[in-house]
């Protein structure tokens, strides 16, 4: 027996000046189902979410809630209609407690203006328990992990009688065990009859948590399928409209001479006794849990932070990398984990971002050489296939995958030969991922060396020539690609936890 349909979209259309973002989209959501929404960059997923959350108005088409035609006028109105969105960026007040956050804006009051703290705590406790969560409602939110904060957001949505919850890439910042807990919570929600629209880039998750899946491509909804009746390769084909021969198109190149050598490198409180070498044409993967010291290591190599002990040798010479400038001069590049807060100046143009590390090369006596800069930026926009209306477009307006290509373009432009990639494909879709992988191939073929930090094991296994595993700031295992398996890497990354 099928559950009743609670949300139905008919012929939804959304145009921006000069762009059709959505065209003729039919979509429906049943009570208590998890409906996965897949699509490449710019396929229209976020536009659809914006329409449902009231953040923008549709240009055409009809919306039915419980088979009654309705209009979603603004975010407040969406809330009144019991629609909630859990965004990638969480919207909690860090210094307030979990309970205070849950009831922010609608606190139970004893007298007008006087809070009923006891009632707040009691309701919060019941709410969290109902989701099977063991979070103390008095804990300040800032001390919680990202996954727990997400649970609090979900609890908050539920407490205000949400019937439709939209999750925008909820797992992008979560570890494997946190994902387990999120999925458990989602299953609880389903039992309570809550419907979920789940946006993700990870196909594996689709099969694990979804009931149905819809694929958006170029603003059109190309298919809606039962999860049980679809395969992974079929979904990829639907998304990109071409067969991806392989998810990881790795090309192996015989490694050349050593370009980077790290000996007993330590930074107190972050990592200790790290030793490895990196060769031309090689991709060295660094696996490990979040907080295992991988990013901290990258920051020291790139001159952002200083090491306390140990040595860094670049092309055979011992170097003291005192600044990012020094690292760039040694032809190093760093694609940071978080492109929005560290990789890009969102308000600046595509051109200015691509050229930022190379400004000294593009200036003479302090003056920018505009034409040279323009030509270089245009070259990388074309080579990388960055979809942008012009070089002057501010990068904040680009999609995630295109933004990531701009970050890569920065370091291509600065002629980096030793590239540190920290979670290079986080939060971007399958098609853009493959493009990034192809660029890694191209770069290694040209003699670059890549240090790739990643939390996605398939990516580590698929793209690395050698793999280092870090655990609690130390190297806990080293594998050649052919001998590595997910199990062996996890075992090294988890250490004693796995045996316990």
């Amino acid at each position: 027996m099928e559950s009743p349909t609670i949300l139905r979209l008919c012929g939804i259309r959304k145009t921006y000046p000069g762009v059709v973002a959505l065209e003729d989209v039919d979509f429906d959501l049943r009570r208590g189902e998890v409906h996965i929404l897949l699509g490449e960059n710019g396929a229209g997923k976020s536009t659809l979410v914006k329409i449902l959350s009231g953040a923008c108005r549709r240009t055409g088409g009809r919306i039915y809630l419980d088979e009654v035609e309705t209009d979603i006028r603004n975010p407040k109105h969406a809330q009144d209609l019991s629609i909630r969105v859990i965004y990638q960026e969480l919207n909690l007040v860090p210094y307030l407690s979990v309970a205070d956050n849950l009831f922010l804006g609608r606190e139970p009051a004893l007298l007008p203006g006087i809070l009923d703290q006891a009632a707040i705590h009691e309701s919060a406790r019941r709410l969290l328990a109902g989701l099977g969560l063991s979070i103390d409602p008095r804990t300040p939110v800032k001390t919680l992990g990202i996954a727990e904060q997400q649970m609090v957001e979900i609890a908050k949505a539920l407490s205000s009688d949400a019937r439709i919850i939209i999750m925008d890439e909820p797992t992008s910042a979560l570890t494997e065990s946190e994902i387990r807990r999120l999925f458990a919570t989602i299953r609880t929600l389903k039992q309570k009859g809550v419907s979920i629209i789940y946006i993700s880039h990870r196909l594996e998750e689709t099969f694990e948590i979804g009931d149905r899946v819809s694929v958006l491509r170029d603003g059109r909804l190309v298919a809606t399928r039962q999860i049980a009746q679809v395969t992974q390769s079929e979904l990829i084909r639907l998304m990109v409209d071409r067969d991806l021969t392989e998810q990881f198109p790795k090309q192996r190149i015989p490694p050349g001479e050593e370009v980077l050598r790290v000996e007993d490198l330590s930074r107190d409180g972050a990592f200790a006794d790290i030793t490895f070498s990196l060769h031309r044409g090689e991709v060295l993967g660094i696996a490990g849990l979040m907080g295992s010291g991988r990013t901290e290591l990258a920051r020291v190599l790139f001159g952002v932070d200083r090491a306390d002990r140990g040595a860094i040798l670049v092309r055979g010479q011992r170097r003291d990398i005192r600044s990012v400038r020094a690292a760039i001069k040694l032809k190093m590049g760093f694609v940071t984990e978080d492109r929005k807060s560290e990789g890009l100046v969102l308000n600046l143009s595509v051109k200015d971002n691509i050229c930022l590390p190379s400004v000294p090369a593009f200036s003479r006596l302090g003056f920018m050489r505009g034409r040279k800069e323009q030509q270089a930026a245009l070259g990388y926009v074309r080579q990388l296939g960055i979809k942008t209306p012009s070089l002057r477009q501010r990068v904040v307006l680009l999609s995630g995958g295109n933004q990531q290509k701009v970050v890569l373009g920065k370091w291509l432009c600065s002629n980096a030969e030793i590239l540190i990639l920290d979670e290079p494909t986080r939060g971007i879709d399958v098609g853009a991922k493959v493009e990034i992988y192809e660029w890694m191939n191209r770069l290694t073929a040209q003699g670059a060396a890549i240090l790739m930090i990643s939390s996605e094991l398939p990516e580590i296994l698929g793209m690395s020539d050698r793999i280092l595993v870090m655990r609690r700031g130390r190297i806990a295992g080293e594998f050649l690609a052919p001998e590595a398996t997910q199990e062996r890497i996890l075992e090294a990354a988890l250490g004693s936890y796995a045996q316990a």
Partner: protein
Amino acid sequence: MLKLKPFVWHYGRQIGTLLGLVALSTVLWILSPHFLTVSNLINVAQQTAINAVIAAGMTYVIITAGIDLSVGSILALAGVVLGSALHAGISLPSAILIALAIGFSCGLVNGLLITRGGLPPFIATLGMMSVARGAALMFTQGRPISGFSEGFRALATKEILHIPSPVWIMLAVYALGHLTLTRTKLGRYTYAIGGNEQAALLSGVNTKWYKTLVYGLSGMLSGLAAVILTARLNSAQPIAGLMYELDAIAATVIGGTSLMGGEGRVVGTLVGALIMGVLRNGLNLLGVSSFLQQIVIGSVIIVAVLIDMALKRHK
């Protein structure tokens, strides 16, 4: 049209401010027969020059997502040192250089407190505001230093092509300021630091050095404003420049520079400063009391920013 489009795209916000200035001038032209006369307009430009010069530096600071509250006090300190240097018989060029150096040094101290000491710009420059003011008062025992040579006063009174020199100085500052912001490494880094300091740092920008430099430049322009003011008044006063920081911030914000940093243009600030100047002049011509003037000017600042925010939301 094709040529015009990128221009409008780039300067849309500034053109809006300019239209505001034109509208304001039209109203004053209708209300007062004295407003639209050559001598009055030159007068307005001359009165605007000091605020405009300070606001040019303020624009750089605000684009880096900072603020400089010390500009008025630095002006006073640079002014009294300049005055006593002239009285001590130091040559005119050297005395001017000393005034600029005083301003630059105070600004550098601001910058170092912010970048090396980790102070928020508001606090560092609030401290400097008091310190520089106190230093100016101590230096002169609270008394003004008056009476300078014709040669020095010519800096404020001499006319070239019928336009007084402070206006030329202002135009030169804005030409240089605009060129620097749009065409140089310093300008590019100013935007990058204000837009995302972390990303700038991780792209190899020496953010601390460039931020310090920007505060130094703001201080130096206060020193330059001190030269103009001292020459115009024929007197260096330790209490000069009171509340100038607020006028400069207002001109910058009316000109479309965001207090959040990362965006803004000096040409917008020039128009913003002119709006403030035209408004003051017009209210004087209309015989509006100085008490009411403050209310009107405050309201204009608020309305200008409200319109700006409303337009941004619609984009």
